[in-house]
């Protein structure tokens, strides 16, 4: 017997509420766990297998794992939410830019880094940068910056999962998880799965498969998760479209009720242009670097390079259209959304609200939630493994010496770090649950995107020097900190930019573009002003051109 809570004068009336969505989600998590444990049986027992799957991953797994890692919960929830808020231009802003630029980065950066990694045995970015610029100092500077940028990104995932589960499970367990108002009545969210439990289950499931199988298990799980969230996005689109009398009727309704959502009048042209820095972040994601290292051959990248924009279109187009329809329904008064602290409708709730309002099928609600969790967890697992790999290789092995530990000890060290990172992330996610950690997500992407010139120059500009690389990192961190302070910490009048419709812009553009300019400028100027790197270093990292 399941219950729903309906307001009454004294307390809430108990009515039937299906627990089916929760069972569907549990079924998905159980399948994921089984797949992860199965994939761990392929583990070869070496540290190389744990960190880079013995460089044996084929084209299909690489395509799916790279796509799944790149897409977060934002792919389903955020895409529809942003379309609700800013109109369909959000597809060009985020998806088609990314389709062009992500593939360019896989082609130009990913393949070359894979080749260097295979040639010299690298498993982390820091190992590469330290050797490329012959600078242990650069490694020590870069390591905390990369970790500091990954952790909020990871927390966004866990907190998103917690927030996704609350409205889906409202009223299911009022006796077990009661949330009471001051007057003793049940609150609206009473009986829902509490965030501490969602975070615990999500972290536990991911931990189970990455702890034993390392990056190989993450790749297998990502493949399954990617298939789940791709199918669920399209399914939601079809069901909602049918409920609205077909796509033509639904879009006509938008033109009547909220025409600005069907064009780009809600966003500025300079903002649209300046967004290109954000997709560049994939060039500096440490967890994506690790997935690139798993490729069996250079040719393995081919499917990833070609099909990534198509996959983005497959996931984003249906969700963006659904977000546009939600805006039309909201404007017509046919859709209710919770309000944010600022009193505006919570755009991120648009997808869930339209599904609940129009489809009213607990099975579909459960499947869609499983899809959202799949998108979230497909990034989380890679981030956990990546941080464990970085701490083991860039800190412990570096400080203690490469011969200090046996291969088996390296694996157990990495597992220990993964365990600690999961535990720390769990606690942090609960502590930061009610803060606006989502704003930090954009700043993480900005940081990675603005460090992109470093990896590009390391691979394609022989004249880049150690001092130039360090200057690039310092300039990026310095300018990033200034704008971050102005946007997030400064509660008074903004010094450099302005806050417009939940966006912090500087002369109408994303602050990322100014940080990017500082990053490029410092790298080029300081490199030109300092002594060129040794010829032996150039020969080590740049393949000779053959006629």
């Amino acid at each position, binding site marked *: 017997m399941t219950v729903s809570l309906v307001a009454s004068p004294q307390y809430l009336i108990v009515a039937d509420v299906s627990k089916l969505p929760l069972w569907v989600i549990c079924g998905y998590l159980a399948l994921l766990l089984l797949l992860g444990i199965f994939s761990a049986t392929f583990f070869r027992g070496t*540290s190389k297998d744990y960190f880079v799957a013995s*460089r044996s991953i084929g084209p299909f797994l690489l395509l799916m794992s790279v796509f799944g890692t790149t897409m977060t919960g934002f792919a389903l929830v955020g895409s529809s939410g942003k379309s609700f808020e800013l109109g*369909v231009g959000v*597809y*060009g802003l985020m*998806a*088609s830019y990314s*389709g*062009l630029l992500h*593939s*360019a980065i896989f*082609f130009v950066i990913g*393949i*070359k880094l894979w*080749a260097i*990694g*295979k*040639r*010299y*045995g*690298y*498993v982390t970015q820091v*190992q590469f940068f330290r*050797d490329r610029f012959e600078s242990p100092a650069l490694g020590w500077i870069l390591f905390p910056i990369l970790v500091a940028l990954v952790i909020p990104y990871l927390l966004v995932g866990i907190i998103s999962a917690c927030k996704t589960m609350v409205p889906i499970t409202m009223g299911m367990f009022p006796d077990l998880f009661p949330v009471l108002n001051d007057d003793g009545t049940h609150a609206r969210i009473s009986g829902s799965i509490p965030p501490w439990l969602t975070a615990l289950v999500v972290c536990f499931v991911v931990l189970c498969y990455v702890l034993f199988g390392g990056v190989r298990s993450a790749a297998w799980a990502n493949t399954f998760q990617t298939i789940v969230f791709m199918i669920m996005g399209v399914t939601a689109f079809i069901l909602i479209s049918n409920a609205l009398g077909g*796509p*033509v009727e639904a*879009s*006509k309704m938008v*033109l009547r009720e909220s025409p*600005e959502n*069907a*064009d*780009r*009048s809600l966003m500025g*042209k300079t903002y*649209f*242009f300046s967004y*290109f820095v954000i997709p560049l972040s994939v060039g500096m994601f440490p967890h994506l670097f690790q997935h690139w290292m798993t490729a069996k051959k*250079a040719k393995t990248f*081919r499917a990833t*390079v*070609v*099909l*990534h*924009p*198509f996959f*983005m*279109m497959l996931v984003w*187009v249906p969700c963006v*259209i659904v977000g*546009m329809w939600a805006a039309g329904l909201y404007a017509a008064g046919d859709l209710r959304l919770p309000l944010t602290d600022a009193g505006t409708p919570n755009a991120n709730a648009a997808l869930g609200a339209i599904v609940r309002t129009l489809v009213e099928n607990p099975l579909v609600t459960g499947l869609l939630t499983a899809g959202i969790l799949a998108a979230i967890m497909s990034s989380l697992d890679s981030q956990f493994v990546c941080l464990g790999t970085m701490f*083991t*290789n860039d800190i412990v*092995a*570096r400080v203690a*010496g*490469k011969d200090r530990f046996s291969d088996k000890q*390296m694996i157990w060290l990495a597992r220990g770090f993964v365990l600690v990172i999961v535990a720390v992330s769990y606690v942090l996610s609960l502590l930061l649950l009610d803060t606006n950690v989502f704003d930090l997500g954009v700043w993480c992407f900005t940081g990675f995107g603005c460090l992109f010139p470093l990896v590009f120059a390391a691979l394609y500009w022989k004249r880049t020097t150690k001092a130039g690389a360090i200057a690039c990192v310092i300039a990026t961190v310095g300018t990033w900190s200034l704008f971050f302070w102005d946007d997030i910490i400064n509660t008074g009048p903004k010094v450099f930019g302005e806050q417009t419709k939940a966006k912090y812009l500087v002369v109408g553009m994303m602050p990322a573009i100014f940080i990017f300019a500082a990053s490029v400028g410092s790298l080029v100027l300081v490199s030109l002003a300092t002594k060129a790197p040794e010829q032996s270093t150039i020969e080590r990292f740049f*393949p*000779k051109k053959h006629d």
Partner: protein
Amino acid sequence: MGKKIILIIFCLMFILHQDFWNWDNNDLVFGFIPVSLAYHAGFSMCAVTLWAFAVRFAWPSEVEAWADEIDGDAEQPDGDAQ
């Protein structure tokens, strides 16, 4: 030659991405897809085509051959990669 052509097309596509002429147009393609979205969905398919050509005509074979010259996992380099 292939690499230069791909680079030129890439730059051209970056410019075509800034489709300011579609900004205030909310006409519907196929009766339900706004022009702005249809344009960028088409743009994504052009990106697929561009990268298919890049893989076919501008593949970095020299990098591939260079990677296969040494097995870094067997011969640990001077660095501390494990």
